[in-house]
């Protein structure tokens, strides 16, 4: 339904993740991940079963070799050729089984990674501004990257390792048949695994969590430094930054050492349990063989079996450790995915269509923080097509008005209405489609200028893009660039000047052609001459649009039909420029602080064309 409001120009080459994360937040992390794994069950189970069968085949090979030696070389009763054929056949079977199952297993792992990455990304794009006000991007980067990898690694390898350990059960049963006493000796060290399991849970899980968390802190420190490098350099604060990195990095080093210590203490212990059994077997079994109660051949077979247990055990230790890490990582991922977007479509919301552009702020109270309200009892009504200028001191809440209108935040009290409908009762996409916001800081993406202008309408034609750029007085300088509209602007568009970026941002909004326009200090970095030209275009553009202009320049305010003065979170006065100058001392104070010496003449906004 809302898709028309969210145009998409890119060919979808990869499908959406089929699985999702289990919604029950109190369920175990594995259970929550299960639907994602199960969405690849065909591939996944083929891989797991394949590797299990390959192991069963493998168990047969030493047995046949042993028979070949006994029957062909020692007893010389059967020709060797037959055994060779069997061994070769078993080997070929194992080869093919492993070839397929290993490839499939890795592919499953990468599919799980793909799913998790895209699920997290999709969720991030749905989260509300208040989330991003709170959580730093370095933290989110770490979670959507290394944490996903650690979960993926575990989910894909665990079942195979478990399948390998299942072979241990098969081997144990086989051993019980041959010699129950020796079987018990051979398996006597296995219960010690439990000790390991407990230790791992008690120690490795917290240390893994700490390690991830400290790495995220290192990432955050680095990320912030990179983004704030202009300030760092401007104040020659490099030393201070290096010391900050030092403080975080040395904690990370400490935790890595602690982690290595714990791993070093417990993992050789686990890995060597089969070898310990082997030594026991040599002593006890050797004693029994010496007395003749078991044959040497049996001992050799048992030894071979225990040897077979070694790789799964090494893997098991690894599994338990990466399992702890994956659990910690999964919880860090869930922390993102479980954050509900605060701004979302309510049940029964309808699409806003054929918007006339009537706006009403009805007794609105709002604060970014609970303890301070930015707007308090704010009421304002705009007729369709009306242009109003909001004037107020820095921090008086002017920008907030636009953000509430586009539902970047929801009001704490009161109502914002578009065409008489509460904005919370229309779909977010349709609302934002109709509200064009030129933000005070023009953020550009490092793609071509054309793509930046077409950001809100990626399917727009080049002619439309050029038209929008022309209206925003950007066409001229864009054409002078080496690659014109195909010029890639550098990181965040920093290769352009502030005024150029603002013009691109204006063009970006004009292209969407919204019936409601909010210009939030959109021309602050543009010089007067160009601003005048843009105003010509804007005036044309604003003809049938409801527009809120936030700005400080009289030239900008002139574009408005009416001026509203904002102070203390509410409108203290509205009227024309002249009226306000006469009646509202605050207006004069805010606007014309510099003009204190002289009175205003006749040439005020009402005479403006």
């Amino acid at each position, binding site marked *: 339904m809302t898709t028309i409001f*969210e145009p*998409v120009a*890119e060919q*979808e*080459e990869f499908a*959406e993740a089929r699985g999702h994360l289990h919604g029950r937040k109190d369920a175990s992390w594995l259970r929550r991940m299960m639907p994602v794994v199960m969405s690849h069950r065909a591939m996944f189970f083929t891989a797991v079963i394949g590797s299990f069968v390959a192991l069963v085949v493998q168990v047969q090979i030493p047995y046949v070799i042993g028979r*070949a030696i006994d029957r062909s*070389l020692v007893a010389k009763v059967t020709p060797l050729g037959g055994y060779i054929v069997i061994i070769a056949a078993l080997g070929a079977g194992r080869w093919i089984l492993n070839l397929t199952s*290993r490839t*499939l297993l890795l592919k499953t792992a*990468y599919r799980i990674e*793909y799913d998790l990455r*895209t699920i997290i*990304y999709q969720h991030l*794009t749905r989260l509300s501004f*208040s989330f991003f006000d709170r*959580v*730093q*991007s370095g*933290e989110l980067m770490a979670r959507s990257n290394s944490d996903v990898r650690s979960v993926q690694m575990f989910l894909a390898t665990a079942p195979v390792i478990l399948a390998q350990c299942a072979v241990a059960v098969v081997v144990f049963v086989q051993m019980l048949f041959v010699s129950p006493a020796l079987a018990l000796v051979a398996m006597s060290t296995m219960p010690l695994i439990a000790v390991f399991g407990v230790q791992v849970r008690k120690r490795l899980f917290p240390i893994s969590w700490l390690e991830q968390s400290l790495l995220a*802190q*290192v990432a955050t420190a680095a990320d912030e430094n990179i*983004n*704030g*490098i202009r300030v760092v*350099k*401007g*104040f*020659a604060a490099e*030393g201070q930054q290096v010391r900050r990195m030092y403080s975080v990095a040395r*904690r*990370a080093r*400490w935790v890595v050492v602690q982690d290595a210590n714990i791993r*070093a203490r417990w993992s050789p212990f686990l*890995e*060597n349990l089969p*070898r310990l059994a082997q*030594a026991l077997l040599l002593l006890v079994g*050797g*004693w029994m063989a010496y007395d003749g109660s078991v044959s040497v051949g049996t001992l050799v077979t048992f030894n071979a079996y225990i040897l077979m247990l070694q790789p799964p055990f090494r893997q098991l230790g690894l599994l338990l450790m990466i399992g702890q890490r994956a659990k*910690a990582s999964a919880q860090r991922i869930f922390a993102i995915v479980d954050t509900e977007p605060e701004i979302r479509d309510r049940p029964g919301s309808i699409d806003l269509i054929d918007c006339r552009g009537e706006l009403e702020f009805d007794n609105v109270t709002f604060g*970014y923080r609970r303890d301070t309200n930015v707007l308090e009892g704010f009421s304002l009504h705009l007729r369709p097509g009306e242009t109003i200028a909001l004037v107020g001191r*820095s*921090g008086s809440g002017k*920008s907030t008005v636009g953000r509430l209108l586009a539902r*970047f935040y929801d009001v704490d009290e009161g109502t914002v209405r578009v065409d008489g409908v509460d904005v919370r009762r229309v779909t977010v996409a349709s609302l934002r489609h109709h509200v064009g916001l030129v933000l005070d800081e023009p*953020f550009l*993406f490092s793609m071509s200028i054309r793509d930046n202008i077409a950001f*809100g309408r990626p399917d727009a034609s080049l002619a439309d893009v050029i038209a929008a750029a022309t209206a925003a007085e950007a066409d001229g300088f864009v054409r002078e660039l080496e690659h014109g509209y195909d010029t890639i602007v550098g*990181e965040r568009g920093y*290769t352009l000047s*502030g005024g150029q970026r603002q013009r691109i941002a204006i063009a970006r909004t004009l292209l969407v052609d919204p019936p409601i326009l909010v210009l939030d*200090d959109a021309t602050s970095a543009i010089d*007067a001459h160009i601003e005048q030209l843009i105003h010509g275009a804007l005036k044309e553009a604003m003809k049938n649009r409801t527009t809120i202009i936030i700005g*400080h*320049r*009289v*030239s900008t305010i002139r574009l408005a039909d009416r001026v509203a003065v904002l102070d203390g979170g509410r409108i203290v006065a509205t009227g024309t420029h002249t009226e306000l100058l006469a009646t509202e001392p605050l207006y004069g104070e*805010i606007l014309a602080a*510099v003009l204190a010496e002289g009175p205003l003449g006749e040439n005020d906004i009402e005479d403006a064309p």
Partner: protein
Amino acid sequence: MIGGASSGGGVWGPAGLGGGSMSGGGSVKATADGKGFAEVPAELHDGVAKILALEPEWEEPELKFSHQPADRRPLTVTRMLSMRRLAIIGMLLVLVVETASLQAGPYLIQVGLDRGVLGHDRSVLITAGVASFVAVIVTVLVSALRGAWTGRIAARAMFRLRLRVFAHLQRLSMDYYTNEKAGVILTRMMSDIQALQTLLQDGYAQFFMQFLTLLVVGGVLVHYNVELALITLVLVVPALVALSAWFRSASDRGYLSVRNAVAAVLGDLSETLQGIRVVAAYNRQKQNVIHHRNVVGEYRQANDYTARIAGIYAPTTEFIGLVGQVLILLIGGAMVRRGDLSVGVLTAFVLYIGAFFQPVQQLVQTYNMYQGGKAAMVKLRELLDTDPTVGEGVDAYDLPQVAGEIVFEDVTFGYDPSRPVLHHVDLRLRAGETVAFVGPTGAGKSTIAKLVPRFYDPTQGRVLIDGHDLRDVRLKSLRRQLGVVPQEPFLFAGSIRDNVKFARPTAGDDEVQEAIDLVGLRELVDSLPDGLDTAVHERGVSLSAGERQLIALARTFVARPRVLVLDEATSNLDLMSERKVEAALDRILEGRTAIIVAHRLTTAMRADRVIVIDEGRVVEDGTHADLLQANGPYATMFKIWAEHSLDNSAYRD
């Protein structure tokens, strides 16, 4: 909160900024679970607390930063490890003992069975049994020692590398940060260093042990029967070498595309997070999600290719191993029939050839680590070899306290040297003068402002401060005397106080308060329950753009610069705030030089001198009144501006 031992800020990142300080009211400000985002989960509280209790009390770091790298030698593994010779020998010894004790098991069993049980010698049996116990215990102890040791070495090496890379990033010039995506730079600091850590911690030790195992097993085979050993090795090794060579080249190719793909994934993610507000404002979620899926999909495909390679290599080596066993059976069987070989030795041979192949199979894993480490190494070496374009000479000297005379001598400059933005600019700003630079957008005003703190060096000509060429003095001594306020205010995570004190952390509270008063933030600060301790961060919108700009200005005031550079720093402010700031500037700037880039000509009016820049050249220079009288470009500009901004009469004096 846990983690008192940390220095500065919330230990768990933004937790302190989260729901904590906001209680009651609508659902808007609460996290889903009511807890801070990055707080310790409940079930881990005890475990984490127990570990943190062991954390030492860290002292304040005493690091000095220098623009001269302390270590100019190229990065190599040996330098990174920087182990003493004795330590290397010790480590090799540990690895030899570990391999030997691992491989001793089968040998002891064979001795115990052959000579103990079959040879009817109980003492040999007991000796062999006890010896194999000892071997296991030695293995456990030595492995533990090795694990803890390599962990320590890797952690130390990574710590040093991280600081070295970070310090180098601080040295690199502005152009590096404009040309390189932030996500990519972050990758250098995080995943590349992580890859090296894995290689150092596990990779090298494993690789060495695998190599050693090959040697030991090969030696044992030769020891049992030279002829059979040579035949097997000659038949098996070439196939193995060929296969490994294929694996290596295919894997290198695959790895390269995986790396490129993952960089694209991270770059896309990072940019989305930075621009998330724009994404939401323009309903781009769907488009972006599809784009990200395509980028991650490419990454998945690159990974699938490596999956096929790894999927082929390991099972095929296994198969070659089996062919080896079959060959031994055939050839060895014939030798047994001829009576040249005992059955026992043949059995041992068949078993040992399996042991010979184990390390080869593990090569897949080790080689992946090696590749990751190698690629990271190349990238990091490249980064560390990048010289800052704005560097500090070895013989740079500290700039003495300046009066603030700034001279541009025939300065030509372009971000891309072939497209100059400034052409032959000659300028002399007298000490203590306030100079406004005006002109159309893109004329080069900001560029002039960026040359003064030496963010860039002129392509031609020079910039002097008090007669010192900027390129001859230490950057720190220069920039510490300048106060630069850029167009876009950037705040660091932390309190308002921390941000105001950023340039001079030693500043007293009274100085912070004074700065707050000067820029007119008093009212705001007093209205916040946490006052100066209110947390802000990079994109926090709880402050308006103007308020953030005011904090940036307060930060500059606390820095007490000798020369102030305001690069459109007041364009986000309303006139009243701007007026306040300017009044503050007047006070603080008494006797100091100021360079102000502005669009609002009110600023120009108040300056001692106005310089008009157009197309990278100085076109006019004089006081506001002089220039108006001259009736040149400035007068025209002012007319247009005044008509549109103010009432003309107010300025016609």
